[in-house]
């Protein structure tokens, strides 16, 4: 069997901003890998430009941001803008982290985030959301 001809879902998992915890991001990355996806993991302290550029070069199907610093209301719109500039506006942008409900709503309504996950959400919900979006 020629497995090399198989299409794979590619996901960028990025940690923009200054907070120094990537445990959550790594747990998500592992869950996605175990679901058969290819996860491009870029490590801590990414600038919005670095996130957008990695999304472009890696041609990912989904961009996932992990933000615990509280700076989501500036980081997410900025990253969305930079993705748009690169003709990547159609790539689903997911945000995970400690995001208050009203912020989550605002990010979704402004079209910056396609979906916001908070610590209470099961990993499986992230996996299945990405699967559904990538069929």
């Amino acid at each position, binding site marked *: *069997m*020629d*497995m*090399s*001809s*198989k*299409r*794979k879902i*590619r996901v960028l998992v990025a940690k923009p901003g200054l907070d120094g915890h990537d445990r959550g991001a790594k747990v998500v*990355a*592992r869950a*996605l*890998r*175990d*679901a*058969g*996806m*290819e*996860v*491009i*993991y*870029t*490590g801590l302290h*990414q*600038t919005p*430009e*670095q996130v957008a*550029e*990695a999304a*472009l*070069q*890696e*041609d990912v199907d989904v961009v996932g941001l992990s933000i615990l610093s509280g700076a989501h209301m500036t980081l997410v719109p900025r990253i969305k803008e930079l993705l748009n500039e*690169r*003709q*990547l506006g159609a790539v689903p942008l997911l945000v995970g982290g400690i995001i208050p409900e009203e912020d989550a709503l605002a990010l979704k309504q402004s079209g910056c985030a396609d979906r916001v996950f908070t610590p209470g959400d099961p990993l499986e919900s992230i996996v299945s959301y990405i699967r559904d979006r990538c069929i």
Partner: protein
Amino acid sequence: MQLVTELLGGNRRALARLITLVENGDPLKNEILQSLYPHTGKAYVIGITGAPGSGKSSLVDRLLQEMRGAGLTVGVVAVDPNSPFTGGAILGDRIRMQDHALDRGVFIRSMGTRGSLGGLSRATRETIQLLDAFGKDLILVETVGVGQSEVDIVKTADTTVVVLTPAGGDSVQTLKAGIMEIADIFVINKADLPGTERAAAEVSAMLDLKSCCDWRPPVVPAVSTRGEGIGALWQSVQEHREYLEKSGRLLEIRKERISRELTEQVEHLVKTMVWEKIKVRMTLGSLVEEIALRRRDPYSAARELLAQIEFPVP
């Protein structure tokens, strides 16, 4: 094809999209590669291989600095294995390549081996071709040196750099595994750790035993986290390239590569063609049943299957 024209025009997104199409074995793949082929052959390919965690990505990051400083554009292909069980992968090489994440002269692509048994997949070689056609002067290919990929990288790279570390006596082990034959340059990375001199001496001793060839692989100590030894490594790469060019070896190895690729392509076409024909004529299921019951044997059955095919006269 629109994307091909865009790639040739320097569009990074088109390059990224085309790599994906090629990697996924898209029906358009051959057409893409065929139309870009006349634009390839200019890039110089450098393979970086070594044990997991030996510091390959950190070395690539530092090398990028040297290469960009010399005014050269660079493509990077960072290959990591997919899990044989789930098919998924975490591709983490970019973590250590952040210094050049925004440099327009650098294009970094991570890829999984996707079941090519630890070897360099065909997709990796095809990605190199796309980066070449895109106009990158140099292409760095990072692969984990376990088993087959070590051998494969030599077939693909013009210069192969093998990264060893002083830790855990892995130099001795890798020497046993026959890595000697593939290295054009040895790096003893993590030279800030104890045992570096011993490791370098071991490698040199092994090289002394090997009496052939007019190129003796240099052994370069480096501390990639601090950028030490990187100038010497870049120097060695350039010297090796010069040696290959002046001796005519470069032309030779590139012809060998083309010969292998041509053979492989023919075999691939034959295989695809044969299975297409056999599939439409009958199912294998009933044959398998009979063979399992030992009423038939796979040897004569295979010949019989092939006998049904009328091979087209080219």
